[in-house]
């Protein structure tokens, strides 16, 4: 649920963040830790060991009832009917014109019970849209965003740190699986999902258990170099992993096809869903622009909003960019016309008074070793 006032919400871990010396920022209506020790150090810790994240700002929406699956299938672009119990998939909820309202992870907790995780800044709008789209069906929407906390542990050591703390059999929990159980004695949902490009888990608990889970994960991981990680590292990690961020790569004027995420639009399934007609047309017409990865071949860092040029023509815009801690190169994502989206194409990015050459590269920038 989105806050009704201008005062940002605080997560149950607020005191922990302040005690750790975090720099706090407002994000999606919540006060969140941007960084503790430093973004680079946290980023590298997640790639090499593991990091623990407070994701309590995310929206948690439960849908339950005999029509939960079919109702959601009308509301989103994927097919939750085909989702197996204990599994999740990446999805989108679109406007009638095909623009993206939010990107989601949909978890099937039981035959007639789903959990939808939405972005903090959109969870109110997602909640409203779901309520409207489920009207007249045997499906009850329960927006538990304010009462629910989420703590993630991400990185190669995540499973080893979490395993002794939980009765969930992690070796049987595959990527995009979810199971109910306990973590540090507290009732929890444990999902093998994340936003870093590493193996890892997202632990969803009642807000009253958040401190217990947070402390347990950090205590268990401390001797092996597991650290708390903030939104700054979360952003550089997801960017290296080529994962889109709503508000940067995704928005109401973007279709899933432009973002290279046409796979989440299940046009082949029967039945209507909101945005279907527009998305069928968008699919048939082909996108006017495509999301690409860029690596800068000159000095500079491309940032959100910088313009992309080809032969002195403005052809697109950078959606996200940073200095990649893992690659040591300046990386970015940008929208360009399909004719310039082929890897190896050289474009340039306007950085202050310079046009800096950049090469189109395949996404993601970083892929973990299996």
């Amino acid at each position: 649920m989105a806050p009704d006032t201008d005062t940002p919400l605080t997560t149950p871990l607020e005191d922990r963040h302040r005690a750790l010396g975090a720099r706090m920022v407002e994000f999606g209506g919540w006060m969140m830790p941007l960084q503790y020790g430093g973004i680079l150090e946290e980023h590298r810790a997640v790639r090499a060991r593991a990091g623990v994240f407070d994701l309590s700002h995310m929206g948690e929406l439960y849908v339950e009832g005999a029509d939960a699956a079919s109702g959601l299938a009308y509301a989103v672009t994927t097919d939750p009917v085909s989702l197996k119990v204990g599994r999740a998939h990446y999805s989108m909820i679109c406007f009638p014109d095909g623009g993206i309202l939010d990107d989601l992870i949909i978890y099937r907790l039981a035959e007639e019970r789903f959990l939808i995780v939405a972005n903090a800044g959109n969870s109110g709008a997602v909640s409203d849209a779901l309520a409207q789209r489920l009207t007249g069906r045997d499906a009850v929407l329960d927006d538990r965003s304010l009462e629910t906390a989420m703590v993630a542990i991400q990185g190669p050591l995540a499973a080893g740190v979490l395993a002794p703390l939980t009765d969930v059999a992690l070796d049987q929990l595959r990527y995009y699986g979810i199971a109910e159980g306990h973590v540090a004695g507290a009732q929890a949902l444990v999902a093998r999902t994340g936003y870093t490009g590493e193996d890892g888990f997202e632990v969803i608990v009642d807000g009253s258990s958040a401190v217990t889970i947070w402390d347990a994960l950090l205590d268990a991981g401390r001797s092996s170099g597991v650290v708390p990680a903030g939104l700054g590292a979360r952003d550089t990690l997801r960017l290296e992993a080529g994962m889109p961020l709503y508000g940067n790569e995704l928005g109401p004027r973007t279709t899933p096809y432009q973002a290279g995420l046409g796979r989440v639009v299940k046009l082949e399934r029967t039945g209507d869903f909101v945005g279907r007609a527009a998305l069928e047309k968008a699919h048939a017409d082909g996108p006017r622009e495509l999301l690409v990865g860029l690596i800068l071949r000159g000095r500079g860092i491309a940032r959100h909003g910088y313009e992309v040029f080809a032969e002195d023509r403005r052809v697109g815009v950078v959606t996200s960019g940073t200095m990649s801690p893992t690659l040591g190169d300046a990386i970015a994502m940008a929208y360009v016309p399909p004719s310039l989206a082929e890897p190896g194409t050289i474009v340039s990015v306007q950085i202050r008074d310079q046009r800096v050459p950049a090469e189109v590269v395949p996404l993601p920038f970083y892929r973990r070793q299996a």
Partner: protein
Amino acid sequence: MVPKDLHYSKEHEWVRIEGGVAIVGITDFAAEQLGDIVFVELPDIGRTVAQGEPVGVIESVKAVSDLFCPVAGDIVEVNGELAGRPELLNTDPFGSGWLLRVTTSDKGDIDRLLDAAAYEALTATA
């Protein structure tokens, strides 16, 4: 604690006068506020600048920040090592993380800067 023998701008640059040349850097407060610094863009040598003129850019993972030259004069040297090691601005901002050397002719420029006590008072309220 900031070094007592330096002069400071409100934009968090420091100046050390050494044999008629002004050495310019940013303070540890500025570096700390920016976070991990990953890119530095410095002016061409030989450029003549006015006091307070933007002469470069310092970028951290999250932020882009202008560098203002706290004294007027000619840029005679820039710290070339920062191109490969921008983190020196975080680890040693008053030493090996220096940015520019500027020949300065106008003593009045220095008088318009803050002393250590005034700069500390400024950052205490920031």
